[in-house]
Structure formats: structure tokens, C-alpha cells
């Protein structure tokens, strides 16, 4: 038993408890300082994650390898950025700030365990730790009708999707007689012919994960939850919870179900196509920027699924790199939305008119983040998308990449609509939008990330390709 491997997770968990403890003794007007305190915890955890060793613990359940390391950094990074964007928002609009930060940290702990688990039981439990914390967070504005509605919708659909996933897992257990992913793979290699039970179980597992990823046709909760939840939580949900779903899904499919690829790759392709087309087209007609970003994030998952259909080493590399890039661009875009909301109290796109004159820094940052989401060189989104599509092209899925490129062009339309509002419309008000230090930190970090990965991707790609070599393709 090697407990040193889970020191980062234990530390972050204890830090969450520390936040609750300190919260108890802090006066109401000083509680906003709990935000920076949780940032300190995250930074220490990043150091611990990088310097703690690699290996396996608890039998086959927990494995600290490059795969879990790179996902842990993505999760901790998005928690860091989400808390940075939360500090002002929480001070103004949220009661019980201590629990708010503690829950973000707890759900991050769940995600880190999720990325490291190589066994279905530990995977299920850590997935639930992640999502149950997020149910509470999305319903956090207790008296706000939209937020409570978002919380209930997320809770019902999240719990139902976990049950569907669990049913799929139970059938897979019945077929293979083990819950360890490596054991499942060994069983499946041996069996000559995958029976109908395996197909049913794969369909349930894919449906369960698709709910977590918000892939079409299991996306209907996402826009409502993203619109209703507190905006920093929306930013966190759209990156970290999707990343958690992907981490677990890739572990299961690339770590145990590769012997039966012919059964699930067509399903992945269908999901990818529907997700890209519907996400991008419905985003066009949104007037609320949070809802527009929700559909845009649905579309982004479609691009990732294009690469996953290839089921190769490059697919895993490109998926992790794209998540990293998407984290910077998406949370950055949300940081601008939050800054604007803190100042003006609205999320309507038409209110962004003339933002370039009121606050040039916010406007140009939003343009850069959107261009990265579309995938314009030299920004990071281009590198990410290039690798995703390259993975699919290597397997000869030209039509799938065609759809992806075409829908990327469509996506330009709704992103540029916001840019048009900001640059070519006259402002209705002239007061500059104030940006606090924490939001400015989140914006600058995201900008650095988007530009650095775009201009000089080699070190990131070579680090992440080590993570991809965890699986045997």
C-alpha cells in the first residue's frame, strides 16, 4: 500500500476542510479572503502533484501516471481560474462563501481521483463526488429562481445519467466478471464474439458519459444549467466537469474496451456529428451570452469526439491538449462575461454594444478568446484543432473532418456577432467597466496560456504525449 501517491488529493481535501473551519471563525465582511486562501491551497496541490511519485496504489484502483498528472493539472488550473473569477462575484452576490469555495475544492478532489482511477468502482464513486458537489454549486443562489431551477434540472438529469452509467457498468461486470479495467480488457481479448449484452452495456455506458459531456442528444440540461448557475460555476462546469467526463470515458474506452472498437466507434462518430452540427447551429440564435457559450461548449465536445473516434495515441494526445487550450480560452471568455456582469448585471449580447470604447482591454481579450475557440492561428485553438483533426484524418475519416471544419466556419458567425456588437455599435453608456485584481489575474493567465500554447506548442505536446502512451493501442 503506497499512500504517498494520494498525498495531493488528501492535501486538497484537508484544505477544503480548513476553508470550512476558517469560515466558521471569520467575520462576514472578511469572508472574501477565503477565496485567496483556497487559491493558495490549489497552488500547493499543483506542486505536490508534480513532485509526488508515480505508481499504483490500492491494488489496481488508483494509478498515478502521466495521464492522471496532466488531467490533475487541467482540473486544478480550471479550479484556480474559476475561483479567481469568483472572488468579486461571491462577495457581492453569494451568502455562505466558505462552503462555496470548499465545494469547488471538493469537486476538484473528486475529479483528480477520477482521472487516476483504473477501476470502475472507484471511478463511479469519484464521479459522484464531483457531480454532487456541482449540483449544490449550480443551485447556490438560493433565492434566485433561475439558479434553483438550474440546480434541480442538473440534479435530476445528473443523477439519472449516473444511474444509466451504473446499469451499463453492472452489465459489463457481469460479462467480464471484474471491475478492474485491465482485467476487463484481458477478458474481452479472450472472448471470440461480443454478445448482444456487451452492445447493450456499451450503449448504456456511452449514454451515461454523454450526459456528463453534454453531447447531443444528451445535451438538453446543459444550456439551462449553464444559464442559471452562478457564472463562475458555469465557467468551471463547462471546462472541468466536461474534462472529468472525458478523463473517465477515455480511461474506460481506451483502457479496457479497445478489443471491441468496432462496436463503439460508429456510435462515437454519430455523437460527434450530431453534437457539432446542433451545437453550432443552435448557438447562432442565442441572445444570452452564457447560453451562447453553453452551445459553443457543446460544439467543442463534438470536435473532441471526432478525435476520439480515431482511438489512437494521437487521439488521446490531442484530446488532452485541446482540453488545456479550451480551459484557457473558455474560462477567459467567461471571465470577461463575469466582469461585465459584475458591473452591469446583465448577460444579454446586445448590452455588449460599444464595449471596445468602454473597456478596450476586456473587448480585445474576448476577441482573442473567441478566435482561439474558432481555431484561428497563431492562437492555441488552432494547434488543438489541428491535432484533433489530424488524428481523425490518419484513420481516413475525411467526411467527419469535413463536417468539423464546416461547422467551425459556422461557429465564426456567432462569435463574430459579439465582436460586431463590441466594435461596431455605439455604446448606450459610457462608464468604463471596472476589473478587479482577481479577474485581471484570471484574464492575464488565460491570455498567456492561449498565446503561449499557440505560438510554442512543442513542450506541451511532448509532455502530453507521455500521458497518451499510458494506453496500449
Amino acid at each position, binding site marked *: 500500500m503506497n499512500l504517498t501517491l494520494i498525498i495531493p488529493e488528501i492535501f486538497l481535501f484537508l484544505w477544503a476542510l480548513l476553508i470550512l473551519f476558517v469560515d466558521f471563525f471569520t467575520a462576514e465582511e472578511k469572508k472574501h479572503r477565503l477565496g485567496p486562501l483556497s487559491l493558495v491551497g490549489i497552488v500547493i496541490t499543483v506542486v505536490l502533484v508534480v513532485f509526488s511519485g508515480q505508481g499504483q496504489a490500492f491494488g489496481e484502483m488508483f494509478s498515478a501516471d502521466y495521464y492522471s498528472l496532466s488531467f490533475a493539472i487541467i482540473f486544478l488550473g480550471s479550479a484556480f481560474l474559476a475561483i479567481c473569477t469568483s472572488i468579486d462575484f461571491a462577495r457581492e452576490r453569494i451568502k455562505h462563501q466558505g462552503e462555496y469555495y470548499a465545494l469547488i475544492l471538493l469537486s476538484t478532489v473528486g475529479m483528480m481521483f477520477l482521472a487516476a482511477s483504473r477501476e470502475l468502482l472507484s471511478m463511479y464513486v469519484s464521479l459522484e463526488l464531483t457531480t454532487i458537489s456541482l*449540483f449544490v454549486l449550480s443551485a447556490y443562489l438560493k433565492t434566485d429562481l433561475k439558479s434553483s431551477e438550474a440546480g434541480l434540472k442538473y440534479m435530476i438529469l445528473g443523477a439519472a445519467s449516473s444511474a444509466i452509467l451504473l446499469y451499463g457498468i453492472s452489465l459489463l461486470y457481469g460479462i467480464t466478471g471484474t471491475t478492474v479495467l485491465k482485467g476487463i480488457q484481458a477478458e474481452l481479448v479472450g472472448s471470440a464474439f461480443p454478445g448482444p449484452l456487451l452492445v447493450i452495456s456499451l450503449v448504456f455506458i456511452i449514454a451515461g458519459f454523454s450526459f456528463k459531456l453534454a453531447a447531443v442528444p444528451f445535451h438538453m440540461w446543459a444550456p439551462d444549467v449553464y444559464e442559471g448557475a452562478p457564472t463562475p460555476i458555469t465557467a468551471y462546469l463547462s471546462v472541468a466537469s466536461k474534462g472529468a467526463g472525458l478523463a473517465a470515458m477515455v480511461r474506460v474506452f481506451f483502457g479496457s474496451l479497445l478489443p471491441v472498437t468496432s462496436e463503439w466507434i460508429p456510435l462515437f462518430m454519430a455523437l460527434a456529428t450530431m453534437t457539432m452540427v446542433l451545437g453550432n447551429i443552435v448557438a447562432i440564435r442565442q441572445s444570452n451570452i452564457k447560453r451562447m457559450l453553453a452551445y459553443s461548449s457543446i460544439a467543442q465536445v463534438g470536435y473532441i469526439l471526432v478525435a476520439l473516434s480515431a482511438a489512437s495515441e494521437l487521439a488521446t494526445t490531442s484530446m488532452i491538449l485541446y482540453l488545456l487550450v479550451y480551459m484557457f480560452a473558455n474560462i477567459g471568455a467567461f471571465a470577461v462575461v463575469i466582469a461585465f456582469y459584475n458591473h452591469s448585471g446583465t448577460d444579454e449580447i446586445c448590452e455588449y454594444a460599444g464595449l471596445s470604447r468602454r473597456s478596450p482591454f476586456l473587448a480585445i481579450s474576448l476577441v482573442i478568446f473567441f478566435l482561439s475557440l474558432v481555431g484561428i492561428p497563431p492562437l492555441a485553438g488552432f494547434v488543438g484543432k489541428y491535432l484533433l483533426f489530424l488524428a481523425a484524418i490518419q484513420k481516413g475519416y475525411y467526411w467527419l473532418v469535413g463536417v468539423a471544419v464546416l461547422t467551425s466556419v459556422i461557429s465564426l458567425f456567432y462569435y463574430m456577432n459579439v465582436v460586431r456588437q463590441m466594435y461596431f455599435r455605439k455604446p448606450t453608456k459610457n462608464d468604463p467597466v471596472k476589473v478587479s485584481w482577481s479577474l485581471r489575474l484570471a484574464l492575464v493567465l488565460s491570455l498567456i496560456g492561449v498565446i503561449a500554447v499557440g505560438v510554442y506548442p512543442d513542450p506541451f505536446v511532448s509532455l502530453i504525449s507521455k500521458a497518451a502512451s499510458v494506453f496500449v493501442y
Partner: protein
Amino acid sequence: MPVPLGYYLGLAAIIFTVGVIGVLVRRNAIIILMSIELMLNGANLTLVAFSVHLQELSGQVFVFLVMTVAAAEAAVGLAIIVMIFRNRESVNVDNLNIMKW
């Protein structure tokens, strides 16, 4: 004579399906929560049946943890439903229609 495996799996599938139909058809949030519990229990029964059939214990351990998680989920779910009830005096999910595309 022991009950064959297929009977257990059939019963579990029926319970799971009843749960799914309940989630889709019923409009009261509390009954939806109960239907989710039914879905989980369908999965639990499958796990236990396979575990006994395969003479392998990890399925039964799984069920214990699923029950714990289900309790946590129900606690958070009921708390959210109470909050909704305070805000709008109703737990009918048809009334949750502020946000629509």
C-alpha cells in the same frame, strides 16, 4: 432448486425500465427522485445477481458503495427540492420553465 440468473436479470431490467419511465413521465420532482432510486436499485440487483453467479465479491462491495452514494444524492436532491418549494410553492417540474430556447 435455486432461481436461475436470467430471472434476476429480467427483474432488474424491469425495475430499471420502470425507473426510466418514471423519470420521463412523472411531473412531481419527489417522485422523479424516487424513480431515480429505482433505476439505481435495478443496477444494484444486476450487480448482486452477477456477483453470486460468478462467485466474485467485488459486485457486492460495489452495491454497498452505490447505496451510500444514492443516499448522498437523495439528501442533496431533497434539499434542492425544498429550496425550489420555498421559492415557488410547487415541486411540479412543468413549472420550471423560466429558461427555454
